[in-house]
């Protein structure tokens, strides 16, 4: 057994594998012991109840899917009365994902969920499904800084900012979140996409556009993880298309201190357990004692020699 623990600011996770928000719920307890994963990241909640988007809410792609679920939420009261007590049975840290329409509302909600049993708050400032044309706070450094500052003022809990790959300024946004007091960055949410049914000539999603997830987006999320890890001092949590041990390692090597697994859990609900085991074995086989020997160890450039076949080999 290698030491798989990883520190995300003042939180220590027993291993770096945790679920991505919206792809995890108490229902997974029917499949495996939820205390074996690094943390519990809940589906984003809002203060008010919301019904979410019209169906169809998902659409399959080669190597991934689109979703336009739209943050249905039972609201803050339900969270306090039902969800929180349920999760209290576990010792893995509970990360509560929240969303709101303004910095002030975000702050109010953060205050409301800063309860015993909550280990960290993940600010979903990047959902492409609730604002027009995928606009979200994390699209620009200015709005990111504003909302994160409001959140920082509202809670003492560790604050994770979940970023979006749809911004053209990933580095500036990451630095804005850090400057405003974020304790960690989750990189990243879904990529805005679309699909059309040829025969009916209709969008395949009730909400027309939606968020792409799954292996197809991995190179994008990995690139952004790399960009952010180089640009900030706070921990980065990689997320996007992770399905295999190689994927986990790519994100860690790129600089992520932990990863979130999303859509792959739909294909294989036990994938997080398998990843933890595979990581453990991979490290043991190489005599790697701790994740610090992996995290951020990417070489500055491609090794031309190592990739030269034939005459150069």
């Amino acid at each position, binding site marked *: 057994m290698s030491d798989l623990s990883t520190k995300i600011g003042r939180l220590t996770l027993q291993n770096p594998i945790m679920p991505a928000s*919206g*792809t*995890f*719920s*108490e*229902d*997974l*307890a*029917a*499949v495996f012991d939820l205390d074996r994963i690094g943390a519990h990241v809940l*589906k984003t909640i809002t203060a008010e109840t919301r*019904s*979410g988007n019209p*169906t*169809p*809410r*998902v659409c*399959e*792609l*080669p*190597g*991934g*899917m689109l*979703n336009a*679920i739209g943050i*249905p939420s039972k609201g803050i009261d339900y969270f306090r009365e*039902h*969800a929180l*007590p*349920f999760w209290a049975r576990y010792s893995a840290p509970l990360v509560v994902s929240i969303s709101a329409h303004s910095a002030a509302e975000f702050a109010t909600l953060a205050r409301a969920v800063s309860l015993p049993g909550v280990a960290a708050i993940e600010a979903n400032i990047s959902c492409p499904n609730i604002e027009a044309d995928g606009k979200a706070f994390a699209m620009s450094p200015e709005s990111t800084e504003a909302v994160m500052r409001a959140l920082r003022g509202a809670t003492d809990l560790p604050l994770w900012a979940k970023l979006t790959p749809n911004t053209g300024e990933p580095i500036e946004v990451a630095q804005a979140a850090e400057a405003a007091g974020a304790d960690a960055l989750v990189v990243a949410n879904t990529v805005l996409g679309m699909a059309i049914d040829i025969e009916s000539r209709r969008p395949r999603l009730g909400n027309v556009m939606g968020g792409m997830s*799954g292996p197809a987006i991995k190179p994008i999320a990995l690139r952004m993880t790399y960009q952010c890890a180089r640009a900030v001092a706070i921990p980065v949590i990689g997320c996007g298309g992770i399905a295999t041990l190689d994927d986990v390692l790519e994100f860690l090597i790129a600089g992520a201190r932990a990863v979130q697994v999303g*859509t792959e*859990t*739909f*294909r*294989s*609900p*036990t994938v997080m357990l398998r990843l933890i085991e595979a990581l453990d074995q991979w490290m043991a086989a190489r005599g790697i004692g701790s994740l610090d020997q992996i995290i951020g160890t990417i070489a500055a450039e491609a090794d031309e020699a190592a990739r030269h076949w034939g005459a150069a080999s």
Partner: protein
Amino acid sequence: MFHDPLMPAAPRCAEVTAEVLSNSPVNGEYRLMELAAPPEVLECHPGQFFQLLCPTSGADQPYLRRPMSIYGYDAAAGRLQFLYKIAGAGTRGLATLRPGDGLNVLGPLGVGFSMPPEWRNLMLVARGVGLATLAPLAKLAQAEGRRLTAICSARRADLAMSTDLFRSYGAEVIVVTDADGSSSVESLRALIGGRIAAGQVDAFYTCGSSRLLRLLQELGAAHGIPGEIAMEQQMACGIGMCQACVRSFRVGDQIVQRRVCREGPVFPIAEAMA
């Protein structure tokens, strides 16, 4: 039927690779697949389903799992059966499986049919793969000593499926067809109305068609007959996490959203919305 979040009522389910024993066409449009499955996925209840990780085949790369009702299960024998129709990429992939191949299945999932003791005379009404969903219910009904009438609807009499199976469970089988018009809503209203009048129907079970649903809602409301319907919706996770599979239900004067995979796939007929 709805779960308390403090205690996940979801029956334990598992992800296992089962071995294909057979996978052959039954009457052209449908295929029956039998699997050798381990005990951890065989504590099933009629109306539950599995999520199948369908193999890629040629250009087809089904990414998400496909929901499929349990057609038959036998924990003692270690057997699990699905009856399916080829619809698209996923089911095309299923059809390529040969005896000896492995198939990754996740289940059993969802909340199946209920059968309160006072429902003595059961009427099953379905068509096509809907009959697959009702088959294990019929078996259970027989075991519990209920009286069973199965109305099997099909395009032509020779396409009516599983009629022998229903008969073997002691059901009176009535085949209605498009060919002779007996499957029309009017004919069915008359047929079922007659049985109700004769006091032979305590509850309906159905799935599949919204035409049938509306008819049974109408008859159920008129005569105070309860019932259940197994519903379908596109799914991503199948276990309650993603909220892709919601449908609207009428509860009192409210419209509520429920997850077909988790609160369902079986719902009260009176609450379902076509």
